[in-house]
């Protein structure tokens, strides 16, 4: 995350690190005792569950809690190298014991609307800047939901952002997700201070660049797909 700050322990208990051969690769969000949601492009070139582990806690290593992956479910319409349908589900081999520091985020209703300008938070262990260093502690950054038309303006993404995607960050740049944050959560607190998964870190141009905010998978657009795969 660029322009963020250290997260406190237990502040983002649904945040997970998806590791490939022991190396942090992507973020992921815990949505039930055994299911996580992440980005499909995290499994580029390698989809064997045995190569992956999932860990929880504010440090990537040593992990506070680690689980093995039993199954990877990638969206049927995802095409490697393209941005649409960039969503995947991870099924763990065993149930996660919910604790103060590890428990699930809420999934929004398919009909729920998150308005442009709403305050949301992106978290992850991604680089501090494009091709920059990686943090030891989980990072968090408050960003704003950006209207898709604004995001699709010619100087921004010029029509690349589809309805199943969501922009968040600042047109002025500076605060944004970055490499290694992919698959991680963009979350929103409702008026009861209960957090909902609004987006999944997906793509963007570099990190924190002017007119190039972060683009996320719009979770409400895939709510029924998630239900069809997980029963949640």
């Amino acid at each position, binding site marked *: 995350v660029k322009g963020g700050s250290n997260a406190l322990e*237990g*502040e983002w208990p649904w945040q997970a690190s998806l590791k490939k051969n022991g190396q942090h690769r992507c973020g992921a969000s815990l949505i039930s005792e055994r299911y996580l949601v992440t980005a499909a492009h995290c499994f580029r070139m390698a989809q064997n569950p045995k190569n992956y582990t999932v860990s929880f806690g504010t440090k990537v290593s040593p992990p506070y809690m680690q689980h093995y992956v039993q199954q990877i479910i990638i969206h049927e319409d995802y095409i490697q190298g393209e941005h649409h349908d960039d969503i995947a589900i991870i099924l763990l081999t065993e149930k996660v014991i919910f604790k103060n520091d590890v428990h699930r*985020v809420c*999934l929004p209703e398919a009909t729920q609307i998150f308005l442009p300008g709403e305050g949301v938070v992106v978290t992850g262990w991604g680089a501090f800047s494009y091709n920059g260093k990686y943090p030891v502690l989980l990072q968090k950054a408050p960003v704003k939901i950006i209207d898709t038309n604004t995001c699709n303006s010619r100087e921004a993404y010029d029509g690349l952002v589809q309805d199943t995607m969501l922009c968040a960050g600042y047109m002025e740049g500076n605060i944004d997700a970055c490499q290694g944050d992919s698959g991680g959560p963009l979350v929103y607190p409702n008026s009861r201070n209960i*957090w*909902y998964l609004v987006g999944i870190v997906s793509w963007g141009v570099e990190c924190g660049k002017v007119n190039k905010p972060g683009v996320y998978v719009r979770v409400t657009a895939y709510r029924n797909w998630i239900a069809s795969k997980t029963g949640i």
Partner: protein
Amino acid sequence: MYRPVTTSRTSLPLWMIALIVFGVLAILGVTIGLLVHFLAVENTTYNYRGSFKVLNIPYNRNYERETSPENNYLSEILETKIADAFHSSSIYRQYINSQVITLVPENNSVTAHIWLLFKAPRSTKENTRRRIESVLHQMLSNHSGSLTTDPNSLRLMEISKADAEKIINSRCGRRARMSATYDR
């Protein structure tokens, strides 16, 4: 003739007697002070689990789903009602937090299961519990607003911190650790 052995008694010097008396008083004072502190002054947090019925609500399965608009809407009204009741009560200093945990829809009513967190000196624990119950009972008897609640359906029991954490952590999107406020 035997001369009785007369033992000559050596009395302690005055300063040593004073020192011993002072030492004993100091130990007594510290012991009583600690007892008073831990029993009467220091606050301990107590978790409660409760439930009550909200009447005249047509059956709707969505109340059971924790992320449904119906559940959020009713839960928020009840949470606000509970918080207001305790903030305006005589035990507002002891009140820390409360949340609706689950809603169970039944025929023409919904049972709300709630969690409450209070702090109170150990010595006044029972009294605090009675007062919590009376505030809740009064709140449920008060039919202002759009909700009708049944005061006789109130149940309240103390639970351990571990059980409270288990209850809250089983719900989605809640956090034990609150961060600073974020722009909405």
